[in-house]
């Protein structure tokens, strides 16, 4: 199956199963990418993992991202079916005021630390996670350092001017 065909098949199948959950389905750099509504994300992932038709049983990667308007956070899942060798990317976005998304630790054990990392750096709260606490940073830290409101450079520095180039 070509990736284009795969993209369309998964999209129609998800729409049949769950109704209008697929917000967009694209193919950047030949990698099927779906944006799913965050209310249904757990059901969709469970279906993709457990249905015999798709069988995406391997969670390659889970990470979070902040959108460019700074008002939304997203979680990005990379799934892999090693038998047919298909990879897909699932994304879901939600408001930064209520950054809640159901955990997938019940589907993949590996999601445990990946979700803790996403919580640690972006403050995404994974509902139902067995041990949602900081993993890399000290526990008394009260910010989520990978959000865009915390720039890499110290803003109080006066000796360096970045207006001409760079970020």
């Amino acid at each position, binding site marked *: 199956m070509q990736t284009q065909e795969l993209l369309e098949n998964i999209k129609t199948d998800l729409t049949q199963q769950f109704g209008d959950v697929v917000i967009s389905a694209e193919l950047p750099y030949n990698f099927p990418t779906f944006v799913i509504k965050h209310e249904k994300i757990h059901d969709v992932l469970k279906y993709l993992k457990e249905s015999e038709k798709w069988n995406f049983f*391997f969670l390659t990667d889970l990470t979070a991202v*902040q959108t*460019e308007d700074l008002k939304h956070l997203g979680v990005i899942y990379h799934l892999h079916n090693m038998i047919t060798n298909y990879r897909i990317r699932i994304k879901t976005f939600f408001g930064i005021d209520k950054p809640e998304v159901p955990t997938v630790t019940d589907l993949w*054990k*590996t999601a445990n630390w*990946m979700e803790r990392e996403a919580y640690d750096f972006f403050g995404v709260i994974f509902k139902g996670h067995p041990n949602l606490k900081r993993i*890399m940073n000290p526990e008394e830290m009260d910010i989520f350092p990978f959000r865009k409101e915390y720039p890499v450079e110290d803003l109080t520095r006066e000796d360096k001017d970045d207006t001409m*180039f760079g970020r």
Partner: protein
Amino acid sequence: MISEKPKKQKDKSLKTQAETLQERILKNEEKQYTTLNLGPTHPATHGIFQNILTMDGEYIVHSEPTVGYIHRAFEKLGEKLAYHQIRVLTDRLNYCSSPINNMGWDMTVEKLLGIEIPKRVQYMRVIIMELARIADHLICNSVIGVDTGAMTGFLYVFQWREKIYDIYESICGARLTTNIGRIGGFERDWSEKTWQLIREFVNGFPEAFREFSNLLERNKIFMDRTIGAGAISAEDALSYGFTGPNLRATGVDYDVRVAHPYSSYDEFEFIIPVGTSGDTYDRFMVRQEEVWQSLSIIEQALKKLDALEDKTTFHADNPYYYLPNKEDVYNDMESLIYQFKMIMGETKIPKGEVYHCVEGANGELGFYIISDGGRSPYRVHFRRPCFIYYQAYPDMIKGSLLSDAIITMSSMNVIAGELDA
């Protein structure tokens, strides 16, 4: 009289307490657990990890790993640096095989930019990546030997790792944190000395490695120590996101070089060794066989390079992303412009997101870039295989002896730099 009386009473109550506790332990009513801190800086953990173990005698009941001691926020730093500068950060992930990380990053950026890489450069990359894999596996396997009490093999193969480092040094000038290569190829063509060093390595290494294998592979003491220690089933390994030799030791033949060939790996003939039980001995044996396979890949690559007509190309023709020679910058107008644009971040980078993975020495090393067209990525994420499979460690050592836990950790090839990013 008054002062003596309470003292006696206290002694008595303590004694009775102790007696009852002993009785209860003998009756197995109440177990006494000991808490043991393994790490953060314990010589047997080869890196900065802490494990708070709850022990029942010499057996591990529960363990609580703490990570993040050398966390350096590479993903955040990457949002500030230009694409060619992030390669320097990838050195510090798995520092036992930094060339694989460097080239994995370069290939990801090349995928984003859509650069075609010449065959000669691809084969040269394959040689370096396989040398790095050999170096990494040598460290891991010889350290399993050290942790089981066999120091000789470790010292013996380290001499050969040193020769691999000499090869890196003759190509890029650095040994451990190599920063080898550029987006599009290498910074300069390899010298005659480099080729000579590679040939010397390919000719001399098999004999030394055979001796190392003879020392451990069928050694009764070593086998007794490692067989059955830290075993994991294929189902659990997949659920825990294992990749690389650790997954293959459980019997799953997943290798990124075959599943998603990059850098012309589809042209090479090699087998994927798999184990059966996923224990320490299987992981050791899978790595041993992979060293032989890597060696055969290097030999094939050398043959392919000899057969190529092209003997001079060492980078792709992409002046927009490849820093020109310093000499040209001073004498050639166009090169000056390219140099200025690259350094000042005026080069056009396409918008988009790209995931690329390579077979690192300890698993699938993935790079995920979201580009918004700026000088540096909007978001960069490293899929570090160590970080993902180390979370299975508490499950793997549950109920085992403390000494088995030590060799389980060294056989998993957990590298602190990669774990903490």
